[in-house]
């Protein structure tokens, strides 16, 4: 149960590609948190979390997403979500977190939304 994290940049926007599960008790949460801290440390202000390959998330994982959001906000940065799978979308709905996150189905739209 691991989370793979990759980072790339497109037109001044930092895209974090996530693949796997974000749940309690594995190294996954730590990895996401650390990556985002690093990115923000380098001065990134526009961040997209690509959840296209995140098949599973639990309430701890949702907490991690929120933590990413608030950490970024505190440093004047913005976090948006890309390619949220139906299963995860359902959880954002139930928890009303969809009111917190801008979400996109298309990478180009997500990148453009920052300008």
């Amino acid at each position, binding site marked *: *149960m691991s989370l793979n994290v990759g980072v790339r940049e497109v037109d001044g926007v930092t895209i974090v590609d996530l693949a796997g599960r974000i749940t309690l008790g594995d190294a996954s949460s730590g990895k996401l948190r650390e990556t985002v801290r690093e990115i923000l440390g380098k001065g990134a202000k526009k961040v997209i979390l690509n959840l296209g390959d995140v098949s599973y998330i639990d*309430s701890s994982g*949702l907490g991690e997403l*929120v*933590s990413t959001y608030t950490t970024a906000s505190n440093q004047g940065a913005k976090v948006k979500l890309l390619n949220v799978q139906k*299963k995860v979308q359902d959880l954002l709905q139930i928890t009303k977190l969809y*009111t*917190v996150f801008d979400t996109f189905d298309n990478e180009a739209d997500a990148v453009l939304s920052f300008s």
Partner: protein
Amino acid sequence: MADPRSLELKLESKVDSVDAAELIVQGLAREAGHPEDEIDHLGMAVRESMVNAVTHGNGYSAEKWVYFSARVEKDGGLRVGIRDEGEGFEPRGVPDPTAPENLLKTSGRGLLLMRALVDEFSVERAEPRGMQVTMFKKGPGAKRG
């Protein structure tokens, strides 16, 4: 028609037990003919409840057990029980995580998810201590209410 079957396990207070309970319930639901998205939902609800029992309830203690039970009924309905040996808590005292002032908290969404993901849900103090969670997912043929 599903084969009625049931099992009861005494599980250690650790994350592996969470995974085990989730896999077991998913397997029983699949056997009983539940559709894939319902299997996922039930699995998630069981996961959240097991996490609470292991962490908040038993505090990962090697001296405390999680009592897990699952029963498949004739029509495929699936009842799951999860009991811990912790201090217990007052469910009505848990703040609504969807209230605007709580929306940016990094925890507190487990009970909300459990309630939303199964057809029946209850959480109450157990004897002699701890909490008892019971959830029920209707059989695949049952009309959704």
